[in-house]
């Protein structure tokens, strides 16, 4: 997963719900130095009895925001969505020549 274009990650999930798995796995895919290079990661854990669906909010370097409801998504789908925009940004970066 391309993470260098993410500035802000906000996750909310109930760890006891089996549908929270993509949320937890997304957090584990973030590289170890991401926080040091400026990414803000905010985790909120819901109580066990909560029926609220798991949500993931991501902000990119160009200001785009992506909000995903992880109820019906698998981690591969989540990664695809995030990567789609990241690849656009990567191409822009390549073209502007850095």
């Amino acid at each position, binding site marked *: 997963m391309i993470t260098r274009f993410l500035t802000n990650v906000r996750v909310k999930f109930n760890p006891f719900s089996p549908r929270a798995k993509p949320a937890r796995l997304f957090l584990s895919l973030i590289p*170890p130095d991401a926080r040091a290079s400026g990414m803000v990661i905010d*985790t909120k854990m819901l109580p*066990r009895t909560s029926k609220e669906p798991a949500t993931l909010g991501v902000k990119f370097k160009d200001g785009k925001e992506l909000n995903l409801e992880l109820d019906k998504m698998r981690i591969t789908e989540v990664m695809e969505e995030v990567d789609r925009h990241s690849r656009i940004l990567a191409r822009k970066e390549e073209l502007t020549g850095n």
Partner: protein
Amino acid sequence: MPLRIRLRPRALCLRIMHPKTPLSASYASLATATTPAPPIEHIRSVPPVLRYPPTQPPSHKPPEVRKTQLHRQYQSLLKSSALILLFQHNNVKAVELMGIRRELAIALDKVDAERAKNGQPLFADQIKLQIIQTGIFASALRVVEFFNPVESTLDHAQHPTDPRTPTSVQITQTTNSPEDERFKHGLSKHAWDVASNRKLKIELEPLLSGPLAIVAFPAVSPQHLKTVLSILSPSPDFPAPRRKANPDLYEPAVQSGLQKMMLLGARVEGKVFDMEGTKWVGGIEGGIDGLRAQLVQMLQGVGGSLASALEGASRSLYFTVEGRRMDMEEKENPTKKEE
């Protein structure tokens, strides 16, 4: 099968044994080279010979692989730990992990130093942050929860090849094959068969995915739990130690490592608690002794109030009758006085 060496039949007949017992002495035609059986009184039963070492009965997977060793370690950890906290560690670096463990050890030693003054049991050195292999941990948890063979005390007391075992003892006739269902240890194929029944679900199952680390406590001690929570998952209920008191905790490596640790839940004496439940357990005042004292107080109060409620009816009756009697006496006396 025909003999490889061609022997002349006459040569066989010549090899007759001269037995000492009277049984086959007179039967020269019974020219077989077998010792006759001794009389019934002299027969002694020989205990069965185990072909596996007593400390390593046959296991489902090969015993020398790391998986089996870890499985056994996790089983023993689950059985011996009263309280287990579950954390997710997201790409924590080795240096950060080192720092976190160091801070945890320092904080727990402080708690133990206080407990030593009160003479309470110390277990700071048994509480460690351990990263676990999630799949094997899940399998070990299933075995621990669902495999409960009926253990008789004789299984542990006597062993067939021990010379002190009397020969009349009943011994489980286990064979050497791992498939034998008489094995009662957690690594056996029988244990795996029982535990892998997919109809049984463990409560902790949704938590057991992804990278996990555990902190295991040998006993439920709210003091130690409070300390661990204040370091590993600080919150308004469990504030982290101040920078002035503990400057090493605020090193960039340790802080970045701590930000990547997420408390998922806890398993307390077989029951599963979420984050709030864990905080509640940590918030019990005074530790286990305080809890016991509260319980005793409550029971005493209950007993007292129950007793007074039961005798309340008769007591009020007594007072009523006494009061009436006093009244009547007073009435009589003044009339007497008047007279």
